[in-house]
């Protein structure tokens, strides 16, 4: 190549690096998180207790792990509404493999993860090969997975789980709860996958411009299947961690997981139309929700405000996004856009 280009100076590349890190999408939500945190830290003595801060992290870990999978799916331009049901089914299969099949906890966990992979693979094949619309399709398969869960458990809980099954949710690594470590490991690996690998680039490509992706000649089907399979795996992992957090295996485990998961991704700046989103953003989104929920507790407000706050957060995030993409402005809102 030509030699007449000037290489960027160290300062320039450092600046570029900072710009890259503070890419506006994440920096906006990150700023919101920091402000929120600082305000709560100043206002509430209970909030700033180390135990409380750890509690927040523990509370957002399962949501975050599953939301990493959802982020990948949304970036590719699809949705996975079956995540909660996969989490529940995987958790119950894990518990049953230990209780009824007498398997060792680690083997049972691998079995549960396998179920998640299988469910995700099925979603992927239905979306990619059979070209079914992911929203309705995963809503349907989610119903099937939930049905299978209740069919095999007859709706009965399994109590008295051994430490081996609950360690992921309850255990400690040194002074740090294992699930917090797990959350950061998953976030790191998924970040690498999305930003540094060919697979991650392909995900962003098919979410950004499907037609152009097909023209390039990439195997869109295989990438889709991979995305849903990974989403299934992370849902199962989340479900198994929940097993430990709850302490018992309840068939309804994982229900109610979907909304916080989607919220984390959206608040974190993942574009619903696909192509844009980051794992860091999703983690920040989950943290904002975690602090919002915790604030209600430490400020001794009615905890039932939680759903209202969460729902409003999503609406606000969607509005901000519309503004950013130029789809919405004050003229439109005020009805003067004629």
């Amino acid at each position, binding site marked *: *190549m030509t030699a*007449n280009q000037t290489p960027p100076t160290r300062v320039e590349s450092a600046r570029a690096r900072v710009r890259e890190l503070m890419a506006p999408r994440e920096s906006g939500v990150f700023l919101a998180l920091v402000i929120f945190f600082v305000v709560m830290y100043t206002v509430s003595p209970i909030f700033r207790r180390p135990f409380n801060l750890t509690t927040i992290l523990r509370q957002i870990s399962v949501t975050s792990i599953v939301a990493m999978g959802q982020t990948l799916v949304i970036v590719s331009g699809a949705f996975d509404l079956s995540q909660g049901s996969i989490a529940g089914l995987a958790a119950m299969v894990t518990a049953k493999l230990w209780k009824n099949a007498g398997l060792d906890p680690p083997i049972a966990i691998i079995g549960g993860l396998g179920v998640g992979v299988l469910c995700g693979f099925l979603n992927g094949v239905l979306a990619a090969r059979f070209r079914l619309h992911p929203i309705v399709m995963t809503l349907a398969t989610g119903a099937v997975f939930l049905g299978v869960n209740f069919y095999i458990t007859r709706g009965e809980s399994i109590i008295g789980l051994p430490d081996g099954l609950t360690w992921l949710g309850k255990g400690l690594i040194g002074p740090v709860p294992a699930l917090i470590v797990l959350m950061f490991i998953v976030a790191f690996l998924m970040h690498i996958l999305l930003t540094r690998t060919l*697979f991650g680039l392909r995900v*962003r490509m098919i979410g950004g*411009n499907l037609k*152009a992706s097909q023209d*390039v000649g990439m195997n869109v089907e295989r990438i889709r299947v991979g995305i849903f399979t990974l989403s299934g795996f992370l849902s199962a992992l989340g479900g198994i961690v929940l097993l430990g957090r709850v302490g018992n295996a309840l068939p309804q485990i994982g229900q109610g997981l979907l909304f916080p998961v989607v919220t984390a991704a959206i608040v974190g700046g993942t574009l619903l139309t696909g192509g*844009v989103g980051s794992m860091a953003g999703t983690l920040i989104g989950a943290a904002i929700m975690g602090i919002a929920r915790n604030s209600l507790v430490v400020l001794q407000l009615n905890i039932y405000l939680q759903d209202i706050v969460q729902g409003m957060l999503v609406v606000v995030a969607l509005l901000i996004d519309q503004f950013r993409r130029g789809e919405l402005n004050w003229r439109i809102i005020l009805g003067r856009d004629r």
Partner: protein
Amino acid sequence: MSIEHAVEMRGISKRFGTVQALNGVDLELRRGELLGLVGDNAAGKSTLMKTLYGSVIPDAGEIFIEGQKAALRNPRDAQALGLAMIYQDLAVFNNLDVAANVFTGREYTRRVLGITFLDKKRMYNESEALLSRLRINISSPKLLVERMSGGQRQMVAVARAIGFDATILIMDEPTAALGVKEANTLLDLMSELRDQGISIILITHRISDVLSIGDRVMVLKGGERQGVLNVEDSTLEDVEYLIVRGRPDGSG
């Protein structure tokens, strides 16, 4: 067939239903020249170029690329022979950066532990070199395409085509949606590319564009070739006359 021609099309005909879109059209693109292709709407310009690019299969006629007879069944065949076509609706990825767009479909990768990682550094370096070789004024290959202007997006598409070792570039109305300044920058780029040995066919409604940077201009009307003029000894009126009235003596 003459080797001085990058492209030679002979007797290309194409009928869509009852419409004879092309009727025995010949075209010669000399190596390293910029040929303007002009004519009214429905004159057959885009159809002719689509047959060259393999996205429309002609009913009759032959196509020679670099002197070799070419069987073009789809754009991929054409790309393999060094052709690239840049459409008005660009196939760029707005959500990705410049380098990712330039290297779409042939990314540099490294395999570590069975995982295919992107060699981002190499792609940034090479796309930066490519941009500077083409004298394309885009500040960084890390720039997101969605933050760029229409003209800059066109240039990314051009860089991508050249990066794919295209030697023959077909551009369909590249300046139609651009402002004057941007259009001029793009025209500068096209003459720069021509000077670097790329053969270019430019479809356009703006005849003045062709007269300012082109070598020859070919006029189509009603699916038939009306004539080819040397830019040097032609005026705007000469070209417009051909577009409106057709060839004066009834011969090619």
